[in-house]
């Protein structure tokens, strides 16, 4: 299970997954290899964009807290973990191997 507190593991979006941003309310992620589609809200969109480069969950959580000032930290952690778990499970985000 993915850890998000003090998690040094690095993750990266699957480069084959496409993004359709409809507006500030969210968008749609599309994996053309599997024909899977995921609808994401504005927070999910923000998280996705954080992982378009190699990133760590704790850094992403910090970025969320900076951009969504009213979000409680524990809620952010939990939501991020849930989002990441789902994305990893479906192959939309992957773990980056350490050198």
């Amino acid at each position: 299970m993915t850890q998000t507190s003090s998690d040094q593991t690095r993750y990266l979006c699957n480069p084959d997954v496409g993004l359709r941003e409809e507006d500030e309310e969210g968008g749609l992620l599309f994996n053309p290899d599997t024909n899977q589609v995921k609808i994401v809200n504005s927070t999910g969109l923000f998280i996705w964009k954080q992982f378009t480069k190699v990133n760590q969950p704790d850094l992403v959580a910090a970025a969320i807290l900076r951009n969504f000032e009213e979000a409680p930290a524990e809620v952010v952690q939990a939501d991020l973990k849930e989002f990441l778990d789902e994305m990893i499970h479906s192959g939309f985000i992957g773990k980056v191997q350490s050198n």
Partner: protein
Amino acid sequence: MSDQHQEGRLISTPRKIDIALTGKCNLSCAYCFYADEMTSRTDLSTLQWLDVFESLGKLGVMNVILTGGEPFSRPDFFELVDGVVANRMRYSILSNGTLINGNTLAEFNQGKRRQRLDSIQISIDGSSPDVHDHSRPDSYSRALRGLKLLKDAGFPMTVRVTINRFNYRDLENIAHLLLEDIGLSGFSTNEAYPCGATNRYENEIMLNPIQRRDVMNTLTRLNSMFQGRISANAGPLVLSREESIIHEAQANGAKVLPGRGHLTACGGVFEKLAILHDGTIVPCHVISDLNLGNILTDDIKEIWQSHPLLHALRLRANISLGTITPCSTCAYKGYCTGGCPGGALFLNHDFNTRNPMDCYRILTGEETYPAFQVTSPS
């Protein structure tokens, strides 16, 4: 303007694009929606198409349908497929099947070409060369060969039968050939449309209303016989389904059905566009005369969101059939969606009208209609 009928937010960019990769074709089919455009315009180059695919990928386009002309006639076809794949899209192919051979199938095995392929549609118009070649000259054996190669190799494939005056009596034989002899899971149907090359034949190829009724009955019977393995998004089988809907609605005393009573037939303008082989952007290949711009010079996102012709086509859904002639007096207007705007444009020179080919009142003979005089829209 009539009452508001449909609310909904437009997606930011098209999800799908129909792409005519080339105007060249090794056949000269009698009803091809591409007529003189095929030779009067110049194909985009390999690099131009690859740039187009990069643009489409950045816009989040998810699916492209590769057609033509005959897409396999392009020597760089698989290089272009790789461009689609590299830009995160899936694709389908519309082909006459005649250029498909073992080498073609082997090419699909490279990279993600086959993984990203949704389907290959092959056109078959008859159960024998005599029938098929009448509308698709000198192509039956090669098309059938391509079809069988794809099927034997397990490709996701479909067959489209375009019903016309040359083959409508052959439908039962066609169904037996495709569904029993070759063993396809199904095939789709449409009919020759009043656009493109059909103009040259001045009604020698399109079904007349009596023939269309004949085909409706035949397809309904065959579809029952073959347990629903014949499909259609337009044409006589759809007319037959619509007739059943009307009869049921009348039996239930319904005067209006949800989503009907307005010109709502076409949802394409809410999710896709088409690009011709010279880069011209059009709403769809059926309406290739409505020039929205060119992919080489114009911003497709801007066109999608702001072009007045697209806006007008989308507003079509708000037009009540009760406000247009001759639908306002029609007893069936509450059950009707007005039909394809392409047909309306070609036959009436106005897409904000009904398509006579889809008109139930004309179909039943309650309204007489000139025998589909086909002229080019102004």
